[in-house]
């Protein structure tokens, strides 16, 4: 991959990102014409600003965050199958959400729903648990972190199943629906709730771009080049956890973006994180926004859960790129 080609691809992704952000709010159950925005007091204008724009922003931020976190975990664990949810953050959040749905927490705190708050608490709990477990036997190795995360993931998933088992049909349906992920936000509250976590987490991850290059070549090699491996691992773990906790609390565990967007970007711009970080963020954001636009238009007025669309649309796209690539 030449520098020039990679730079071109990133510029195209940037342009596509702007285009998607600008165009997506006009598309929906009923298309809104740009002129409608300039007519004072119109219903369409209201829908555009109050519903569509927040939703599109939420989708973009969530997609960018999940792709960035997935990329960071894949570099940290040197494992192409790592996802933002590998360490159990999503299962913790899901358990939190399930308990809130089962318990009927319908409170709103400063515009944030009880389910979302409870999901976030679950995410925080799982992060602390994984981190605490992996510290019992210091020094923290990546294998311990990974295995502790996977164990916590299964543990919370089982508790989630148990919660569903104890719930009636309505609650179970809502829990399962939550697990599919969705972007049914109704106002800017979701954006404001998510943005600080995703922003801070992505900043922590992006700060470590050189370290991620070296870590993906091997921990011992990274250490011999001067990377403080333990500190980098902690930064990436907490950065990704912030992102994933923030996103999942609002949107549920939307699948596919976090694992495949980084791979698609590796095929597009190469493995160097100086290009991969911007590419994954831009691609993830636009990709999830496009998927969500489809999710709310294809069978309008009903909606398909966006977690269904991501893999349906992204899977073939990834396979086409993968199989079209010149073999090494």
């Amino acid at each position, binding site marked *: 991959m030449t520098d020039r080609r990679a730079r071109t691809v990133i510029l195209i992704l940037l342009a596509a990102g702007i285009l998607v952000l600008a165009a997506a709010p006009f598309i929906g159950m009923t298309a809104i014409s740009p002129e409608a925005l300039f007519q004072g007091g119109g219903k369409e204008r209201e829908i555009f600003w109050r519903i569509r724009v927040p939703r599109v922003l939420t989708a973009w931020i969530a997609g960018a965050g999940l792709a960035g976190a997935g990329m960071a975990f894949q570099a940290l664990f040197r494992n192409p199958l790592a996802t933002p949810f590998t360490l159990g953050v999503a299962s913790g959040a899901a358990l939190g959400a399930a308990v809130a749905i089962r318990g009927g927490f319908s409170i709103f705190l400063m515009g944030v729903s009880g389910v979302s708050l409870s999901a976030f608490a679950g995410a925080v709990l799982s992060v602390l648990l994984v981190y605490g477990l992996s510290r019992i036997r210091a020094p923290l190795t990546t294998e311990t972190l990974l295995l502790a995360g996977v164990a916590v993931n299964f543990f919370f998933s089982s508790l989630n199943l148990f919660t569903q088992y104890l719930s009636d049909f309505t609650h179970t349906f809502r829990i399962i629906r939550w697990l599919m992920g969705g972007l049914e936000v109704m106002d800017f509250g979701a954006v404001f709730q998510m943005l600080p976590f995703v922003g801070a987490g992505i900043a922590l991850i992006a700060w470590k771009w050189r370290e991620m290059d070296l870590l993906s070549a091997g921990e*011992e090699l990274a250490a011999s080049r001067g990377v403080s491996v333990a500190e980098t691992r902690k930064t990436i773990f907490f950065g990704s956890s912030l992102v994933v906790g923030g996103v999942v609390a609002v949107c549920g565990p939307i699948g596919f973006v976090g694992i495949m967007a980084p791979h698609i970007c590796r095929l597009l711009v190469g493995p*160097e994180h100086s290009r991969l970080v911007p590419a994954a963020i831009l691609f993830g954001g636009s990709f999830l926004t496009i998927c969500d636009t489809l999710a709310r238009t294809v069978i309008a007025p009903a909606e398909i859960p966006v977690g269904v669309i991501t893999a349906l649309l992204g899977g073939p796209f990834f396979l086409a790129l993968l199989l079209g690539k010149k073999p090494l």
Partner: protein
Amino acid sequence: MTPVLNVESLSLSLGGKEILNDVSFQVPEGIHLCVVGPNGAGKTSLLKCLMRIHTRWTGSVRIMGLPVSSMTQKELARKVGYVPQAGERSFPFTASHFLLMSRYPNLSPFSPPSERDRQAVREAFALTGTTEFAERDMRTLSGGERQKVFLAAVLAQGAGILLLDEPATFLDPFHEEKVLAILESLRRRSGITIISVTHDINHAVLFADRVLALGGGEIVFQGSPAEFMTEDTLQGIFRRDFTLVPHPVTGQPVAVPSVPVP
């Protein structure tokens, strides 16, 4: 003169097993020290302790008088470079990106590589004769080519002390000679200190200034190549008999392969 490297009672246990026990030695600047010893003697572990890949050792290591415990990993990597044993260690970067990555201890997190960094990379390629591999994916290089690129990368890193784990073991005779010649010329020209682990006794004698032998995690021999190359010393270290003959050119004793006993 302060030695460039001063190791005092270095000990390491991994998983309850004692790997290194009370290892102490000094390395003067600009020499080539060969570390030898049977399998499992702790040779690789010693290098990994010095590079702080293993972090939980006890004792003291000083580089040019400074204790490494007071250095960040980045500061350490400016002074010490490491080439691991050849093996499955490929990754999808091009050789030139790998060399630029190896400039890490000299780079700040936010500024792009400077002309000085690019110059260091070009020089490292040139010194090791690997310029032709610059744009090749590391995964497409042969074992010998990759070894030379790893050597180039550690040179690009710019450290004055090189820790090399069996730098020539997997190379054919041609590339083996090339790599050893590169190391020798570096040491002469730039005063780089080399600590290499090897299983090749003759290589230890012909290329090293000093030999250090480990056995069961302890130092069992330290001295000049001439002192090392006696039948008794070798027998003591490796628990087998060696036949030594004078080298036809230099006259130094070298070990000849043993003949199978009928």
